[in-house]
């Protein structure tokens, strides 16, 4: 058993991190915040050329030929960097929708009652009829609301159609993005706690702040083990568990990071709110955590 990153996986992670720092650094991030709803096609093609979308396509089909663990590492980096766009939908469309693999086609997907990036997409998967734009809480994720599931037909006596089970790979890649956010907000909190001084010393010397930071790390590391293991086994129950842990690590992590930042955390200028808002968007995907909890509970009682 060698449950740790291989040298190649480390190199891949570093490579993606460097790529994203180059093509989507802090200035690009803040520019994207100032132009909500606009998808940077140049950035999308750069990602495509780098193999972000074609990562798991076989080499024979023009892909990179890597597996789920590598995709998870790449999406973790995307989450860290707050990379915008329908990343998961386009990644999953690679090989199926022409141009998706190379980043020439932007693919969005309907996900229950929500859809991200509908207007910017060239191809929409799923039935987007009746979609209405909403004023998205996340400045980096334009959202549409779709009509809810139809009520049961009392005459036919049939139950309401059950929402299609979400693609486990989509759930896992979202968990990977959440893990990236969780790791990043932990770093931001620790950096701030080291640098910010009050009462004549860094606030990180106060136990109340130290313990918030420690809990941030505990959630990240527990979620990391769950997400990476799910990437190895690809087992739907492992993926459901990974999703719950990663959602918690990202959402609660961003909340605690905001708290550590004090008044600065409440400003538009600090990046913390961008992480929190994105984490909120992601935790709604694929039926939300409830679906994962029910899946795990059902497996337990068998």
């Amino acid at each position, binding site marked *: 058993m060698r449950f740790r990153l291989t040298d190649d996986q480390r190199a891949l992670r570093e490579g993606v991190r460097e790529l994203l720092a180059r093509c989507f650094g802090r200035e690009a991030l803040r520019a994207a915040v100032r132009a909500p709803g606009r998808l940077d096609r140049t950035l999308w093609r750069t990602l495509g050329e780098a193999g972000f979308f074609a990562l798991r396509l076989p080499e024979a089909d023009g892909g990179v030929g890597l597996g789920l663990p590598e995709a998870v590492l790449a999406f973790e980096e995307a989450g860290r960097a707050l990379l915008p766009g329908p990343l998961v939908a386009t990644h999953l469309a690679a090989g199926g929708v022409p141009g998706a693999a190379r980043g020439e086609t932007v693919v969005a997907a309907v996900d229950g009652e929500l859809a991200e990036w509908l207007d910017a997409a060239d191809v929409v998967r799923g039935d987007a009829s009746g979609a209405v734009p909403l004023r998205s809480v996340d400045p980096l994720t334009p959202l549409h609301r779709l009509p809810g599931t139809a009520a049961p037909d009392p005459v036919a006596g049939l139950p309401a159609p059950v929402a299609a089970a979400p693609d486990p790979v989509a759930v896992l890649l979202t968990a990977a993005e959440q893990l990236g956010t969780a790791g990043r907000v932990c770093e931001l909190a620790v950096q701030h706690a080291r640098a910010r001084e009050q009462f004549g010393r*860094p606030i990180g*010397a106060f136990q109340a702040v130290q313990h918030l930071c420690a809990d941030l790390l505990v959630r990240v590391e527990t979620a990391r083990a769950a997400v990476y293991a799910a990437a190895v086994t690809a087992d739907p129950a492992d993926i459901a568990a990974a999703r719950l842990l990663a959602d918690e690590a990202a959402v609660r992590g961003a909340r605690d990071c905001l708290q550590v930042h004090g008044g600065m955390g409440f400003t538009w200028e600090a990046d913390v709110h961008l992480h929190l808002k994105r984490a909120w968007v992601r935790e709604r995907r694929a039926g939300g955590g409830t679906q994962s909890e029910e899946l*795990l509970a059902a497996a*337990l009682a068998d």
Partner: protein
Amino acid sequence: MDLSYTPEEEEFRARLREWLAKALPILPARPSPDDWPGRRAYDLGWQRMLYDAGYAGVHWDASPTLRLIFLEETERAGAPYVGANFVGLLHAGPTIAAEGTAEQRARWLPPILRGEQVWCQGFSEPDAGSDLASLRTRARRDGDAYVVTGSKIWTSHAEVADRCELLVRTDPDAPRHRGITWLAMPMDADGITVRPLRTLAGSAEFAEMFLDEVRVPVADRVGEENDGWRVTMVTLSFERGTAFVGEVVACRRVLGELARAARGDGRWDDPALRRRLGRLDAEFRALWRLTQWNVSAAEASGGVPGVGGSVFKLRYSHARQELYDTAAEVLGPGALDLDRPWVLDRLSSLSYTIAAGTSQIQRSIVAERILGLPRGR
């Protein structure tokens, strides 16, 4: 990232399973919790069986992965817990192996492995808990012996132990970490009084130990005089290694039992309870993966468990309490009945966020040693 085991590891697992299937049915009946001599005999007997089968030293010389497999399989099979052998196998033994002289290793380690001697731990004191380095039990040199006076607390198995790994202050004037010495005190020496300490679960799991001019031969000192703090750190880092493997396996089994019990009596229809159980399943799946992650890291670093164990312990001790709080919800009014399953376990679980470093101390360790935050107060 690879979660599969090597053919050698799988073979170790298969042979262990085979042996457990034969060994467990011939075990004697478990003694009652209050029967200390019975518990001692039972636990030592189990260790002897492990010794005869070649598994006695698995905690010492096997790779972290084999240790994980050993703990996983013994728990799955319902084998006895390490019990009275805990301090010998997992604290004192490893410390002696690392820091003892050749003579001490030859004198003390084989009886531990063969299941002949029980060790206990005399570290904490009434006024030295989380702040262990403030311990005040005094030892003064008198010829070829130390004369020890003071008191110790939380000493499991003191009633039936042969030796005690004991921390004493040998230099009261030195900076506090530098005046401590590690002794292996014989428990049959004059001047030792053991008083059982009843826990909130009603059981006498621990004892207080009062030491009045107890003579400990200088030959029973491990490491140099006044170097006991460093010697102790070797032991403490062992405590947070693979120590919880069996318990995570057990928690996952309990979780399945809870789900089936809830399904059997209609409580399953409550979506809040179902979701809580589902979330706990995610939690323990993750803790199992974190164990495998930490074991893989220990394997890569030469088998030395590090402060990463604090991360695990923080999460695990909380999860275990949440598990038994959920059990209480499944039990309903039965949660108040000490004769129902899980009720005593719920009480015992209250110690998890305290024993072996409170969650507050663990958070400070994580903040300062892993995250590099400035030393707090």
